[in-house]
């Protein structure tokens, strides 16, 4: 098995920044595509609550990446996919 490099700074930043933006996008996808759609009254509260578990789970587990580079690449890729979906929602659903 491949050795895990510590890469503290880059992994921490990847988890904190990309983990947060990923959580934001996934919560956003739930807001758009989850039951009731975007404008259902009071749904926004749960949407906001979704951010912290996704963000902090991602951040906690980001040290499992074999290197800081891989953390940035993988989380960056996940972000790209999530934001592509989110902007598609914003563009196509009204």
């Amino acid at each position, binding site marked *: 098995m491949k050795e895990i490099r510590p890469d503290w700074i880059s992994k921490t930043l990847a988890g904190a920044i990309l983990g947060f933006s990923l959580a934001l996008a996934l919560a956003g996808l739930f807001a758009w595509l989850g039951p009731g759609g975007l*404008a259902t009254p009071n749904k926004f509260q749960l949407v906001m609550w979704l951010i912290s578990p996704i963000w902090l789970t991602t951040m906690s587990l980001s040290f499992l990446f074999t290197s800081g580079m891989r953390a940035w690449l993988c989380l960056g890729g996940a972000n790209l996919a999530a934001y592509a979906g989110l902007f598609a929602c914003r563009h196509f659903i009204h």
Partner: protein
Amino acid sequence: MRSDVVRLYKVVHTWTGITAGMFLFIAFYAGSITVFAEPLARWSSSSAPVRLTALAQSDELIARTLAARPDAGKEFTLHLGETEDLWARLTWKKGKDDKTPWSADLSSAGDLRLAQSYRSSLADFVDNIHRTAGIPGANDIGETVMGVVSAVYAVALVSGLIVILPSLVKDLFALRIGPNLKRMWLDAHNVVGVVSLPFHIVIALSAVVFCLHEPLYDALDYVVYDGRLKSIMAASNPFTAIKKDEQPAPMLPVNVLLDRVKGASPSFVPVEMRYRNAGLRGASVQVWGYDTRYMTRGKGFAVISPVTGEIANTDYLPGREGTWTGIVATFFALHFATFGGDVVRVCYFLLGIAGAFLFYSGNLLWIESRRRTERRHGGPVNQKTSTRMMSAATVGVCLGAICAISITIVAEKWLGGRVANIDVWRNAIYYCVFLGSVLWSFLRGAAAASVELLWLAAIAAAAIPLTTLTGWTSPALGMQGSASMAALGVDLVALFAALCFVWMARSAARRAEYGPADSVWAAPQRQLREAAR
């Protein structure tokens, strides 16, 4: 679990724990007390027996208050309870942060008595310490810092779990009390951490939300809602469920409104009614109260029209919420212990204290680990500056917060009604004791300070029931406490805490005198002797 993963996460756990630990200690200790905010408010309430207007006279009280003071109609509160922390049946204030509300009552002769008084609550002060860990300045600074601390805390939880997973079965139920003190502390830290892990996960995730919800909403509005969040929030607002209408209209009696709410939810126990725009057709009443059968956000409420008697909104009425507010209410309840009544509150109190212990023991382990590596060199040891500083900080901050909270509580009884601005006094007392303790700890060193501050903590905690006793035996002081079980409970818990602190102080003194000399916990003169050996 691969051993390199465990090694990696041990580092993560160490550094997240050591940065967040002391903030969390204060937040957990004060939070445990906040679980019993109501008994604390009743304990500290003024002794003068207030005769509240009979509930049956509420309608007369409302009508006469509105006739005398039409400005009260905009927003006033009718208090339905009979507990000693209430000082009037009807109150109103200008804006949320107005600390000098007006109150109205009917005297026994039937006269309307209006009064304005300064109001500020000790329970709120302790709650503020809980939310900000006592970080001074505007509340939002402290809360933002604590939001970040809570995020770090969540990472500490996951990493701690990963570290212990491989040896979970072996270590969990082993509490090896013996000569190896570090082993014992580690076992205790592990068992408390693992057993209360679900509680800690809930607290960490919800605390991040409570502290950072505003920036989170801003981010969502920008990225997800495309600027439409404000209007969605407005459409969800329960307080605007009744449309504005400035035509004068008669209002239904209080009893009828309460009956309507009872009809909507029989197990709901109302404690206050907040009227808005009273006397107009667009008037609304929020009936706030408790329902121990459900998981609630604290107090729940129904919005009802006092003119038509129609219930306009039940989004926050326990058991009658919609899907979305219902789910979120569960998260609130899991943080605030607002479900299951007193049994759950007691459990949360104990879990909170156990949490404080977790962070304290975590710091001890950090110090103890560093000590061991120095011992390998052989010969006399002089502890590193970093462990000295960390031990002094841990003792000063943790015990300082404990002492400061106790002394602030005691001072409330002695100063209440005697000083003009109790807020200033509370802050002065809390920060003097807290900063004084921290300074003391650095000056005296952790070993001596831990013994001395634990004695101070014991005395300060014992002063709580002693104050109550003094109040009862010397009525001339005018601070007789309330005789309710709730208030008495505060005295009993404080007495028990005092005994615990005495036990800890004696153990700490023993360790300083007879424990290993090559430790930051040995008495200063023994450490010096060791270094000169």
